[in-house]
């Protein structure tokens, strides 16, 4: 029987980590992810896990220690947000290229500057091409579930890549929800042992990790790493299917909500998808159909499936909680439009909304603005402005 609990998103992630009982957790405090190592160090202090907790002096060292721990043959985890993730930047790439399936709980927060502790996605969006698998979570339950699946995905022999599980800072990280936890023994059986093929602590077969890799071989290593990212998609599907058998909770590459008969669609990540679903229900009651498309797996980006599913819509609004400062739309917009174009899907009119930057509240009224515009485009086929800002004072 599942365990019914009331937990915040941070506590849910920490509880998942407790159940996984990794070899090493190395972390540094930063709002709003601080609670994750706080909870976890309490588990250590109370003997609920036998993990080595490494209270590092920076996030750079957190990721460096995770790399050392994972390469040594252990399972390593960490948590961070915003500037902490930015300080890890260099090592994010090194973790990925070294094919070390570290798991990172990313509690999304605005990346400086200016300094701001509230939620948007500018931190993890910047790391979207660092070679990490990125999985996004709408609520506490999803944050917990995704953490439980992360090791299985990253450690799969066809993958061997680090995994970042994202949830919205404060909005879900500090919101207490009712959720279903999986029993400890079932988690243990589901996650399994980590048995790497090669590792530093194997004295019978010592290895060297992290070479200077010149033009003679570096390209081949990058190509191999790219393949691992391509292969991760099927593993995410397999692991999610197995997780569904265990829990009854179904996860795919994305969630399409209220799609039937809809000509308008709004693409939105994480907690705002919840708000959008609520508005979609209200609109449905009024006879207006707007679908909500919530990406779950963002890296690797499931181009084929996304293009196939979105082809049927007449109008699509892509909502980005991150500004790319490229005068060409947010990161989701760029990825989605290029997926559609690459797959020969030219039917839908696509617009972009940048919203919620620096934690600006996104209310149902705001979502209605997006829905109405998308419905209007679906009806008229006319787009006046492709790039839009939502909720900023003009």
């Amino acid at each position: 029987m599942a365990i019914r609990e009331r937990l915040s998103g941070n506590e849910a992630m920490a509880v998942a980590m407790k159940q996984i009982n990794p070899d090493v957790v190395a972390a540094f405090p930063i709002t709003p992810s601080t609670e994750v190592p706080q909870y976890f160090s309490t588990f250590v202090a109370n003997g609920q896990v036998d993990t080595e907790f490494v209270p590092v002096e920076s996030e750079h060292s957190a990721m460096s220690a995770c790399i050392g721990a994972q390469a040594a043959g252990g399972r390593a985890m960490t948590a961070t947000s915003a500037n902490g993730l930015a300080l890890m930047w260099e090592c994010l790439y090194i973790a990925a290229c070294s094919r070390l399936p570290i798991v990172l709980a990313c509690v999304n927060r605005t990346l400086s500057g200016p300094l701001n502790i509230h939620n948007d996605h500018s931190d993890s969006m910047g790391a979207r091409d660092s070679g990490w698998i990125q999985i996004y979570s709408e609520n506490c339950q999803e944050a917990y579930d995704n953490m439980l699946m992360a090791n299985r995905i990253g450690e799969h022999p066809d993958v061997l890549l680090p995994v970042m599980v994202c949830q919205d800072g404060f909005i879900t990280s500090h919101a207490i929800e009712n959720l279903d936890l999986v029993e400890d023994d079932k988690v243990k059986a589901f996650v399994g042992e980590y048995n790497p093929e090669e590792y530093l602590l194997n004295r019978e077969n010592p290895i060297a990790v992290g070479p200077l890799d010149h033009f003679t071989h570096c390209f081949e290593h990058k190509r191999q790493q790219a393949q691992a990212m391509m292969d991760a998609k099927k593993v995410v599907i397999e692991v999610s299917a197995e997780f569904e058998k265990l829990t009854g909770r179904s996860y795919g590459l994305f969630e399409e909500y209220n799609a039937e008969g809809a000509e308008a669609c709004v693409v939105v990540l994480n907690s705002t998808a919840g708000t959008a679903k609520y508005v979609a229900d209200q609109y449905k009651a009024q006879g207006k159909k707007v679908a909500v498309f919530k990406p779950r797996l963002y890296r690797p980006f499931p181009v084929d499936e996304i293009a196939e599913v979105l082809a049927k819509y007449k109008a699509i609004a892509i909502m980005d909680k991150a500004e790319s400062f490229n005068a060409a739309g947010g990161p989701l917009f760029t990825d989605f439009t290029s997926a559609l174009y690459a797959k020969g899907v030219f039917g839908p009119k696509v617009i972009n909304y940048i919203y919620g930057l620096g934690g600006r509240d996104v209310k149902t009224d705001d979502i209605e603005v997006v829905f109405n515009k998308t419905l209007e485009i679906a009806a008229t086929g006319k787009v006046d402005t492709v790039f839009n800002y939502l909720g900023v004072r003009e």
Partner: protein
Amino acid sequence: MAYNLKEAAKKPERLTGGHRMCAGCGAPVVVRQILRALKPEDHAVIGSATGCLEVSTFLYPYTAWKDSFIHNAFENSAANVSGAEAAYVAMKKRGKVKGETKFIAFGGDGGTYDIGLQSLSGAMERGHDMVYVCYDNGAYMNTGIQRSSATPKYADTTTSPAGKVIPGKLQWRKDLTGIMASHNLPYVCQTAAIGNMKDLYEKSEKALYTKGAAFMNVLAPCPRGWIYNTPDLMELNKLAVETCFWPLYEIIDGKYIVNYKPKNKLPVADFLKKQGRFKHIFKAGNEFMIEEIQAEVDKRWNELLRLAGEEA
């Protein structure tokens, strides 16, 4: 067991030939001797900061390390190895690894005094059972001899060039060994590869087999950066010690011990004049520079003697 050069020779070599360090480089000499102090039956996980040592000893697909080796980046050798050590502790508890494994992190002075200082300080303060070794060649040699905070005053480097107006580096060296002593570690030392290597070997053994975090600062002359003929390596090591430019000492649980007091302390100029990077200070009119350096060396040496409770 007391050090014996001939007995030590029977221990296995743990750094192979075939690495790409320059001919006559001081660093691999240091590394070989440190690794020799490992018990033959012990496995080692060795990390290195980006730098000459790393790029030359693990250039894909060749590793010169007979033990496990990891390189991550420039500034995080200490944090990286601390993570491996933490995994060892966890896996040992869980019965997943057997035998003894020792942990050594190497960094040059750039990766230790400068960009890696925070990572080093953190790992040492946390008390991981590991040894951090700084091989100090006094500049960023790997990128082409740029000044570091370990570069001696007036040295000519590519970012502190001796010009018509500015005579090389204008600042004194950072006292890294002192900084590490202030971390109150169980073992801190300064050493060099001299003579039959007794000092270096014995300190390595203490550092490796003292439980907790240990730090070694080891002089490693660089023929390219210091500008001297390669056969002079050991003479430069010796002169650094005999002039008290690089005193040999250790700090065991806070207690300072000076391991070698030259009977006849040589003038620092004897050490400097062997090196092309100080050529300009020997020009007429620049005598004050040598005097300044001598005064600083004397000051630091006397301070060290005072800390060790010895007479100057």
